[in-house]
């Protein structure tokens, strides 16, 4: 699904955020991405979202080289990526339904279709009865689930999550993780960037560890990082 081939990113201020990072995310796999703050997690996500472009190396998505994408193709690329944020990035000037419908409206789905798909996504995260509410009335865990519903509503092949359990207690974190597992099971490539070592420890998934922009570990959770 995603392939990094010796990707480096140097910001204009001279800071090397990523150095020669190579890895592949296959479809249907759940992968953790960890590292200290400043290790390059955000940069890596930004490169996939094409918010930033690599300074060196190749980045492939679905076999297509992203370096060859013009700026006007970026929106189309992003429609293939579901993004879950730590702070949910929900809009509080509209209902839960309208928040989740936004990617479909943007992608140009027919009205009738939108209703069906939004309800399917809300049903998936267990919030079907809250569609008329404003997200500000929901709890943190519910807001996060609305964010997930929005990320998956147009069935993207890739799901990125940036600290998705950052503000949640362990029980709620587990619910969220269960959702991610479900998506991976139906073939979605899921990449979860997190600091939460206990969360990583609880599941035996592939783990990518970044340190100072280098990929120092790629494999099972066992025997990694020192904190």
């Amino acid at each position, binding site marked *: 699904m995603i392939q990094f081939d010796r990707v480096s990113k140097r910001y204009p201020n001279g800071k090397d955020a990523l150095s020669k990072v190579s890895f592949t995310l296959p479809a249907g796999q759940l992968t953790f991405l960890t590292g200290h703050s400043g290790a390059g997690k955000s940069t890596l996500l930004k490169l996939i*979202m094409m918010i930033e*472009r690599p300074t060196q190396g190749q980045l492939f998505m679905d076999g297509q080289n992203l370096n060859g994408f013009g700026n006007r193709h970026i929106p189309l*690329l992003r*429609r293939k990526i579901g993004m879950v944020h730590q702070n949910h990035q929900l809009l509080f000037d509209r209902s839960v339904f309208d928040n989740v419908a*936004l990617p479909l*409206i943007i992608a*140009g789905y027919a009205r009738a279709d939108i209703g069906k798909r939004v309800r399917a996504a809300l049903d998936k995260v267990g919030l079907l009865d809250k569609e008329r509410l404003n997200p500000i009335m929901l709890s943190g865990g519910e807001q996060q689930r609305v964010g997930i519903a*929005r990320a998956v509503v*147009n069935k993207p092949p890739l799901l990125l999550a940036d600290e998705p359990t950052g503000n949640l207690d362990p029980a709620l974190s587990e619910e969220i993780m269960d959702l991610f597992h479900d998506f991976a099971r139906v073939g979605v490539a899921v990449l979860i960037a997190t600091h939460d070592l206990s969360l990583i420890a609880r599941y035996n998934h592939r783990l990518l560890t970044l340190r100072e922009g280098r990929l120092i570990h790629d494999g099972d959770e066992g025997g990694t990082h020192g904190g």
Partner: protein
Amino acid sequence: MAANKGPRNATPIKQRPKTERPRRVVGAQTAHTSLKDRFISWRQHHRDSFRDALQRLNAARASSAMTILVIAIALALPAGLAVLLDNARAITRGWDGNAHLSVFLDMETSEPRQRELAAQWQQFEHIERTEIITRQQALAEFKALSGFGDVLEALPDNPLPPLIVVFPDSTDPVTLRALENRLAEQDGVDLVQLDVEWVRRLHSLIELGERLISALTLALAAAVILVVVNTIRLGIESRREEIVVVKIVGGTDGFVRRPFLYTGFCFGFAGGITAVILVQVALWWLGGPIDELLTLYNSDDSLTSMALSSLIALPVFSGILGLLGAWLAVGRHLGDIEPNF
């Protein structure tokens, strides 16, 4: 202004590829929706954007009203002056018809010779007709009109020269001046008097007025654009979160831009309509005194208001200015807002 319109602003520097890279065609295969669906949805989004723009104007009624009023006042000023100038031009058009040249002949010119000259000049370019006034006629007219009849009786001889009145077919100052020179060179002509200096001055004044209004229109149109730029900029700032989310879930620049362009157009259009109302109210207010003034100047005209075409053109023009302002604001500030995490 023009400098801000360039494609420079279309792409945020941040997104530009650092080096030239092979281009690849992507697009159709990434879309899950049919072309028809996308067209319907595109139309729907235009409708939604327009409704959204109106709702937002309505939601912030006080500040919207102020913006609209600023635009209206800026446009009403040149529009109102243009109407007054139109009226001035209409009135002086009637006066132009009276422009003529009085050609005084040598005292000894005989009456048949006078007729001959008048007939000859009639063939000249730019002369519509000529009229002769013989020395006797002139004397009779002068006696009747001046009240100096008795004095003239006392004179041994008729002191008035024979006269040919030349009516030109044009009131163009250059043509008149040329005609005046040509007639002055003719045999038997003593003096040519062009009695249209004041008409010329009036024409110059009207022309000056036109230029001033043009300059004023340009300056105030720029002001309208700037007002809209600023208003839209604030709107963009207040919807920053929404823009970020829309960009993350794959909204195109056009999708993000659309509601703001509609807002700009609505501001402009509403401002234009308000300007029309302001001008009409002002004309109604000035109508009485101006009609009175016109009567004093022996004019049958009364104050004419804006032409129907201007009534429509002003809001449309203003709407376009609003659209332009929104475009500039969006081009300048939308690129600054990029997702970050």
